[in-house]
């Protein structure tokens, strides 16, 4: 199939950036979206142009490194699918596809479609962990965890930290990301001792990073490749209210 892509090109953080149109010919419908960009880049290199920079690594939907706005939708039109797992068969011959980087002041553009998501790491560093230095652990069976809690914690823990929630949120909020970690750890008995400080510290870090506030629009969960449910934000709010109440 032949398609046209309009890609955001920005040579560096200081550059203003612009959309540039490219023709990509003879793409297999079985190719992934990133493989389509690979083909484009091979051509650009041989033509003496600068290839399009984009983040990617595992290409199997789990590392969370890839991510771009495809026709204005984070990770593109397929639900519960990362960009690397999106295939060209979901587009039509002759389509024009717009590709842009995640847009958030907390995710500054480094080059083209590559953004800096270090803010997510800072949120985790502020409290997204259970303090359990190596060697201190009791036997794994010392504390049984009810299966429903373990399953719910797992569901929250499947977040891949790709940033699609922020990119899609009209407020540029990272609430779903933070809520997923707060829920994962807060649902487990091991996570109880730090439950209050965790939610307060993580929210503080989130605000400091310059993310917007949550207005429960639900855009985040719609684009989330792992389907992290919006209800986790309620759980975070609940934890936060209780934590503040105890102060």
């Amino acid at each position, binding site marked *: 199939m032949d398609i046209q892509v309009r890609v955001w090109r920005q040579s560096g953080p200081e550059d203003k950036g612009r959309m540039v149109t490219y023709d990509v010919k003879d793409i297999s419908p079985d190719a992934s979206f990133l493989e389509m960009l690979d083909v484009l880049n091979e051509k650009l290199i041989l033509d003496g142009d600068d290839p399009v920079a984009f983040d990617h690594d*595992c290409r199997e939907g789990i590392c969370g490194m890839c991510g771009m706005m495809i026709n204005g939708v984070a990770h593109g039109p397929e639900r519960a699918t990362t960009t690397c797992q999106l*295939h060209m068969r979901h587009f039509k011959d002759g389509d024009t596809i717009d590709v842009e980087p995640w847009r958030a002041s907390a995710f500054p553009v480094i080059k083209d479609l590559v953004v800096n998501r270090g803010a997510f790491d800072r949120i985790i560093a502020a409290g997204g962990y259970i303090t*359990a230095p190596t060697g201190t*652990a009791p036997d794994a069976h010392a504390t*049984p*965890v009810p299966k429903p809690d373990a399953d719910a914690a797992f569901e929250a*823990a499947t977040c891949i930290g790709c940033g699609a929630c922020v990119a899609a949120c009209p407020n540029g909020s990272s609430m779903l990301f933070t809520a997923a970690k707060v829920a994962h750890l807060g649902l*487990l008995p091991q996570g109880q001792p730090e439950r209050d400080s965790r939610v307060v510290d993580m929210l503080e870090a989130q605000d400091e990073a310059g993310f917007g506030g949550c207005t429960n629009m639900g855009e985040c969960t719609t684009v989330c490749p792992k389907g992290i449910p919006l209800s986790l934000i309620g759980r975070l709010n609940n934890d936060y209210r209780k934590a503040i109440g105890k102060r």
Partner: protein
Amino acid sequence: MTDSLWHEGDPIADTAAPDGPIETRWERRTFAAKLVNPANRRKLTVIVVGTGLAGGSAAATLAEAGYKVRSYCYQDSPRRAHSIAAQGGINAAKNYRNDGDSIYRLFYDTVKGGDFRARESNVYRLAQVSVNIIDQCVAQGVPFAREYGGLLDNRSFGGTQVSRTFYARGQTGQQLLLGAYQAMERQIGLGNIVMNARHEMLELIVVDGRARGVVVRDLVTGEITTDFADAVVLASGGYGNVFFLSTNAKGCNVTATWRAHRKGALFANPCYTQIHPTCIPESGTHQSKLTLMSESLRNDGRVWVPRKAEDCGKPAADIPEEDRDYYLERIYPSFGNLVPRDIASRAAKNVCDEGRGVGPGGLGVYLDFADAIQRLGRAAVEAKYGNLFEMYQRITGEDPYEVPMRIYPAVHYTMGGLWVDYDLQSTIPGLFVIGEANFSDHGANRLGASALMQGLADGYFVLPNTINNYLANGPFESVSPDDPAVVEARTQVEDRLSRLLAVNGDRTVDSFHRELGHIMWEYCGMERTEEGLTKAIGLIRGLRDEFWTRVKVPGTGEQLNQNLEKAGRVADFFELAELMCIDALHRAESAGGHFRAESQTPDGEALRHDDEFGYVAAWEYGEVPTLHKEDLTFEYVHPSTRSYK
């Protein structure tokens, strides 16, 4: 001929390993090792390269112990290392099922599974430590699968007869890695780890015979910097991407370990590569990587190809039962579809070589769930494999409930790596190597659910104990940036980058990588022959020369330049590829992931030659590499032939 390809040097031995009863070797080693006073630890710095299960857990643990840690990864966050993609599970000899498992049995299975090419001492320690890993991960909040009673669930994995595999649905690697990552982030928040994401190690700095630092490139700005420490830990993963197509992440590379190898660290058993039988086949020339489908699919799926080559083009449904060849069930009646990875992979290759493969290019075999759906019902199959079926459909556009899946083997894991002693120290003092980057525990073949176990064993429990013994001699004299060794390492990096940019030829880096991958897959893949390997060495050398005269790397070194990154990695893959072929050529036996066509039994099974090849092949870098043999002795598990008929 062979003399021109390699020399044989002096044998080596692992002098760090204690002897005596195997059950107490680790305890005796940790007791004998020197300790570092807690107050002195903060004066000692350790560089850790890589943030996967091994690197992440090591960095966190060393920082918790009080050392200053500086950590590097090429990804944008330590959470993205490729350990995250491991699906199946992690083994531990907990014997929670009371099914006769024990440390000794896990040790036994691993030594045997590795086809008697691993060290008994290391494997025993791995099995011992495995139980602590599960405790540690649960304490961190890793959400392992649980039963209704609230206790941890276990499953049997990869054909073992005991249920010792802990898992978190199909995302065990992700959950374990996030545990290590969070522990690491905690230490980053406390200022004990300085994390440098989007940085790539391009050279090791060796001063006065000790590993003292690294040369790194900031992948965002292109700036080249040096970093000095009292010890360097490499946790940079495996080299499966030498095949271009593999289940590894696109960025996985050999550069860190290869640069260390060039600086004097021995590289052991590079030819041992694991080819996983259940991957989604290539769909065309655009293919950039291969995706693994969990091995568990073989528990219910039946593998077959058409009996007649002329049926291969037909839709599967049009091929009647009598014209189907369920070849694994036919050849291995007792294990059937559950034979170990290496055997299933080679059998698939054989039927495809006979022209009976299905799908694009005839490179695929069917994995059929029709019987399972009939027997268990669609709902039951969906409950067990739903997410895998979805993944398959997402990638191929085919519905596996209606048409059989197509699968083909793909490179998945590399058992070889830098040679390390019992302390996980390489032949360069102060350079430690952990996880997939070292060679130590899996021998010639890794069992399912053992990679996660080894990575975390090394990072959480082994290295943090053994490195003390080395660091107790420190802090070492500070390194001057003007030290000739530093200047040399830095210049080497700068020169190499300029050379890559200066060629300005007419072929892309990827085109070379793809071609190298073809050569490796063809001649150093599932089946190797003397003739093929010899040919491959010639082809690799030719292609490497062409690379250095025709490659085109756009842009400059002073910016984010993903093609420059790739070019450097591919340049190192060329050198590694040659050593892999030499290693495969010299090892004229079949063992685990290394199958030499000349060494097979009359019915086509792998034939080991323990007397001749019962050693670790540790290679020293040189124009012509030098082979150092480390003899393997088996006091507990006596070598026998693996049979799955």
